[in-house]
């Protein structure tokens, strides 16, 4: 009976346990890992090895990860601290095991000689990035592109985990061999900026703000330290003739990131958590709730840093010889879900995220381009957030992508830089280059709540496609920026489904910025977008402005006649305003582009300008006409016919026409033959050519474009 009872009890326990596990939905534990920084990997000789703060990360079959603090069920091997060298610490738990290398280091006063005591490399890199950069006129590259606009920002440190300031300590052992120390005993001084001076912290004032580990040279700041500036001074305890190193910093709310793997902490997307789980576990990365990430190094992203679920891998059912090891489309690498009242910040500290080695997206369709991005402030699923997103910030960061402006179509599989669906996105003092598109701003949750995106003191270069793709992204302010070298228009501002929602449009305001991307219209972007013919068409209109026989200007009555082609026959397509599909019936196109220099507006393109709206409804002789606006004055060309076939068709024209908005019956006045061409009209034409930009409208399709004006 006893045996039967025992068997029954055992079965009951097993069944109950399996039901409990199933109910949890986690499945069985699959692997364990030691949480980063929960134990020290360095210990001084003959000192006790401390595991009291040990935390294990337990990964379950369903991909979820649980953090378990040290407990009696954990079997922890011992470390003999009387032996100098590297030993392995092994921890067994739940039938699984994990291990880590522990360095038992000698007291440097006993054995070693310090040969070099240098500033850590990250700090040297930071200081170097604050320097102005000179252009070398003998090269084909403008080296000043590399210079940050603002070079005075204090170094940022996060409060969420320990920050390490480990000098480069070159030591010589008794055999005369040199090596770099991974730990040393240091004398430390911490000062805080108070009342216009640095004051040394001691006692509680110190421990309330920071926990100092003077063996591993780490500084773990508390939340109380956020917003304060500190000066840290370190020097070796046991060395003569070594000058102390000092370091200034400001503490912010965020996680200190040292390696590329740390960037995975940006991703908190519930839809991709299981995709990231394996890579995060391999790198001992937990799922801490963080509000920001602080870079302390340049970071290079390679294929090995990308979750397997984002790639076509050997053995996947849909992998073939064409797509193996390429990136899957619609998979943004680091996706952040920012709740409506949250803020998430990336503090670059002038460091670089280099994604140039990330594989291209495999595209099956001939005319498709990638939808993947490096960073997506994009919500809680793969494609669109289900909830209103909060505020996203990026500050003092350099990013390099895997696409560039080039003449073959390969780069259309490149990544976009940043997708933002945040209600507010601030890009400050950053330098971004070589992406398919750099900014893809959307408002896909609720177009009735306008989002505001500000790009300030930043530089962007060398994109295969446009630099900004705005999709129902209401207000976009580009302030004191440099945007150079896009393969297509620099900015595309789209009104999404205007027939359904008149509020889903995009405005752009460009203030004191340098924007330039001369294109011929034959570049790869124009080719695969079938836009070469449109570019050719636009360029053909230029004849109306500069050809003596078809304009009034050969008579010397108008000064500073301008062209929208430069001497290399290239046009600068600064911004295009479109709807994502042809307008139907009563739908109207909204969108506004304003360019301001030195507090003076030099150009406004406004699709809702009453005169523009009236003009765009004109269909003289059922022809589609281009309308040109500059300085608020409108002109068009008198098209007399078409030559060529299909996409190569270009119009023939016979002179410009002045648009007289006061004559609603017959507003188009041929400039050349118009008998009543009076002083007022002449003044308006002169005003037109005094403009800095040319706005182009087309009454055939609803679109507006801002082109750059050159002196002819």
């Amino acid at each position: 009976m006893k045996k039967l009872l025992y068997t029954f009890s055992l079965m009951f326990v097993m069944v109950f346990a399996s039901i409990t596990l199933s109910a949890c939905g986690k499945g069985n534990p699959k692997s364990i890992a030691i949480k980063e920084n929960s134990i020290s990997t360095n210990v001084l000789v003959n000192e006790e090895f401390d595991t009291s703060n040990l935390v294990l990360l337990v990964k379950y079959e369903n991909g979820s990860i649980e953090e378990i603090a040290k407990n009696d069920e954990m079997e922890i091997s011992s470390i003999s601290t009387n032996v100098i060298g590297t030993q392995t610490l092994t921890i067994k738990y739940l039938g699984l095991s994990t291990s880590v290398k522990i360095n038992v280091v000698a007291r440097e006063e006993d054995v070693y000689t310090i040969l070099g005591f240098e500033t850590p490399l990250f700090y040297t890199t930071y200081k170097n990035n604050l320097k102005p950069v000179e252009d070398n006129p003998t090269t084909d590259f403008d080296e000043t592109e590399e210079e940050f606009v603002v070079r005075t920002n204090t170094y940022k440190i996060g409060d969420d985990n320990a920050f390490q300031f480990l000098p480069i300590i070159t030591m010589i052992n008794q055999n005369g061999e040199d090596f770099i120390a991974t730990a040393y005993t240091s004398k430390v001084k911490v000062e805080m900026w108070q009342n216009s001076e640095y004051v040394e912290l001691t006692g509680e004032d110190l421990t309330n703000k920071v926990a100092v580990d003077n063996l591993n040279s780490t500084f773990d700041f508390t939340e109380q330290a956020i917003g304060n500036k500190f000066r840290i001074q370190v020097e070796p305890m046991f060395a003569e003739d070594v000058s102390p190193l000092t370091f200034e910093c400001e503490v912010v709310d965020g996680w200190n990131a040292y390696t590329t793997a740390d960037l995975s902490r940006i991703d908190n997307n519930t839809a991709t958590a299981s995709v990231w789980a394996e890579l995060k576990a391999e790198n001992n990365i937990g799922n801490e709730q963080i509000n920001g990430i602080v870079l302390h190094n340049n970071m290079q992203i390679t294929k090995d840093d990308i979750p397997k679920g984002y790639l076509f891998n050997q053995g996947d059912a849909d992998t073939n010889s064409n797509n193996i090891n390429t990136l899957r489309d619609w998979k943004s690498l680091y996706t952040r879900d920012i709740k409506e009242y949250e803020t998430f910040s990336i503090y670059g500290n002038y460091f670089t995220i280099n994604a140039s080695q990330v594989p291209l997206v495999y595209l099956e369709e001939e005319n498709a381009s990638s939808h993947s991005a490096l960073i997506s402030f994009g919500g809680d699923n793969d494609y669109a957030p289900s909830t209103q997103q909060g505020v996203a910030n990026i500050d003092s960061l350099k990013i390099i992508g895997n696409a560039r402006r080039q003449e073959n179509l390969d780069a259309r599989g490149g990544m976009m830089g940043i997708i933002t669906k945040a209600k507010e996105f601030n890009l400050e003092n950053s330098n971004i280059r070589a992406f398919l598109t750099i900014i893809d701003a959307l408002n896909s949750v609720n177009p009735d709540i306008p989002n505001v995106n500000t790009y300030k003191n930043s530089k962007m270069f060398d994109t295969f496609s446009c630099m900004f793709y705005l999709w129902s992204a209401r207000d976009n302010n580009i302030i004191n920026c440099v945007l150079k070298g896009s393969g297509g228009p620099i900015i595309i501002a789209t009104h999404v489904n205007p027939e359904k929602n008149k509020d889903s449009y995009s405005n752009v305001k460009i203030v004191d910025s340098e924007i330039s991307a001369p294109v011929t219209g034959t570049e790869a972007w124009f080719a695969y977008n079938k836009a070469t013919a449109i570019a050719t068409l636009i360029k053909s209109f230029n004849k109306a402005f500069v050809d003596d026989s078809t304009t009034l200007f050969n008579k010397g009555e108008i000064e500073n006649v301008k062209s929208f082609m430069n001497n290399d026959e290239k046009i600068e397509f600064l911004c295009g305003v479109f709807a994502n599909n042809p307008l139907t019936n009563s739908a109207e196109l909204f969108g506004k582009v304003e360019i301001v220099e030195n507090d003076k507006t030099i150009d406004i393109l406004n699709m809702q300008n009453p005169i523009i709206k009236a003009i765009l409804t004109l269909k003289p002789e059922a022809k589609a006409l281009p309308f040109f606006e500059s300085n608020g004055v409108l002109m068009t060309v008198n098209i007399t016919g078409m030559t060529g076939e299909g996409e190569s068709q270009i119009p023939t024209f016979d002179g410009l026409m002045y648009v007289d908005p006061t004559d609603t019956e017959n507003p188009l006045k041929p400039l050349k033959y118009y008998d009543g061409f009076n002083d007022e009209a002449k003044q308006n034409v002169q005003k037109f050519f005094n403009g800095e930009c040319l706005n182009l409208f087309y009454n055939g399709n609803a679109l507006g474009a801002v082109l750059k004006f050159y002196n002819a």
Partner: protein
Amino acid sequence: MKKSVIVLIGIIYIAAIVFVGFFGMKVTAYDEMIYITNIECTNEGIRENADGTKTLRFNYVDGGDVLENTLTLTYKVYPDNSTLKGADAATLVYDENTTVATVDGLHITFLKKGVLTVQIKSKDGSNITETIRIIAY
């Protein structure tokens, strides 16, 4: 200009596009940027460390002149067709507060025995670096 002349210009324009398309002549729209993907220090005696950095030992001469105590770094950039090449391709990044040496371009003059860690860094925006720890002994 007569209307027929304008039509003729248009025809020639289209013919040129067809001609180029048919014969496959490449129309270069712009100078593509070819970024540096790797930098390699080429000084003799360089030693690679486990952490990916490199070490170079330099024999410091006590009481020696500037020439004797100057090391010139040499490097090669990849790919061969990168937009920036040769001496214009990279610059040295180092702690400018160092008291161990002075740096002029790629020339490092040691003032005493010690260590100077430098990065050879590309100047084309690719941010490629090679880190060298130079030990003057």
